């Protein structure tokens, strides 16, 4: 009984971190799509002055246009807990790439003693990274309140054990 309750508590903990992270990415994608739009976001990426001379316009346009869609899809997958672990790994790669991009941006436009924009690091990158790290550290088998748990029968087995 105690063991099952502990498992339920862990599943609630994972649910909290996973859904918060999912909401963050999902709504980041939704906002970009509704307020800016795919094409316009791509145009803005292609017009970035720091990258315009280095990276071909077509690549910038493609990356810019895909960004809202990638955020939307990854956010939805993490939010509902479908293909959760591969989706979390994609989010991990995304966070590392974005940190690297902000790092290069910091060298081109230094802010403060550490070059990188402290507001971006502390309020954008680190909270997302913290949610992601906690979710990845918690065992996948304890993520019971997810579509993955329904699909592979984990949730049903847990309910039977509990009953």
């Amino acid at each position, binding site marked *: 009984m105690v063991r099952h309750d502990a498992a339920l508590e862990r599943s609630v903990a994972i649910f909290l971190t996973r859904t918060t992270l999912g909401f963050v990415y999902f709504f980041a994608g939704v906002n970009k799509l509704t307020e800016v739009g795919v094409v316009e976001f791509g145009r803005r990426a292609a017009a970035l002055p720091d990258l315009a001379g280095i990276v071909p316009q077509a690549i910038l346009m493609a990356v810019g246009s895909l960004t809202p869609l990638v955020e939307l899809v990854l956010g939805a997958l993490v939010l509902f807990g479908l293909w959760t672990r591969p989706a*979390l790994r994609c989010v991990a790669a995304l966070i*590392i790439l974005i940190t690297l991009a902000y790092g290069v941006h910091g060298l081109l436009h230094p802010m403060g003693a550490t*070059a*990188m924009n402290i507001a971006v690091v502390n309020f954008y990158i*680190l909270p997302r990274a913290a949610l*992601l790290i906690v979710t*990845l550290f918690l*065992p996948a088998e304890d993520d019971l309140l997810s579509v993955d748990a329904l699909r592979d029968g984990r949730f049903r087995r847990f309910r039977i054990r509990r009953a």
Partner: protein
Amino acid sequence: MTRTSDRAWAILVARCILGIVFFIAGVYKTFMWGPLEHARVLFVEPYADTFLPVWALWVSGAAVPVIELVAGALVLVGLWTRASLVALAGILVLVSFGHLLVDPPTSINAFILPRSALLLIVLLTPATEDRYSLDQVRRSRGHAAEAAIV
């Protein structure tokens, strides 16, 4: 999709962000600012009225950018990770002391505490779980060489 590789991804995220933040700071301070100018502006002048010896301020102020550069790069790629983390931890302690000596207690919240949290995540997890690192490649080669000898 094992539990170990999930943990390895978590460590990778913490290690890479920590490495990037320190490496970028190191590049900026070493090559764009200069270690001596860094020491003068951030160490010697602000602490001129304290009990700290001037020579120590020059030495620590000039060393910090280079340590951040080298240790940040090593942490980023995961080579000699533990030693590099210890070096960065030393910087965090040194900078905490410096800030708290002349600034309010909350002055360490924005810069030092988030970096310390990331550093602790990597340092407190077993080194063998950091699978996506150059240290892991070195460990694997070492084991392969041992097996070949046996």
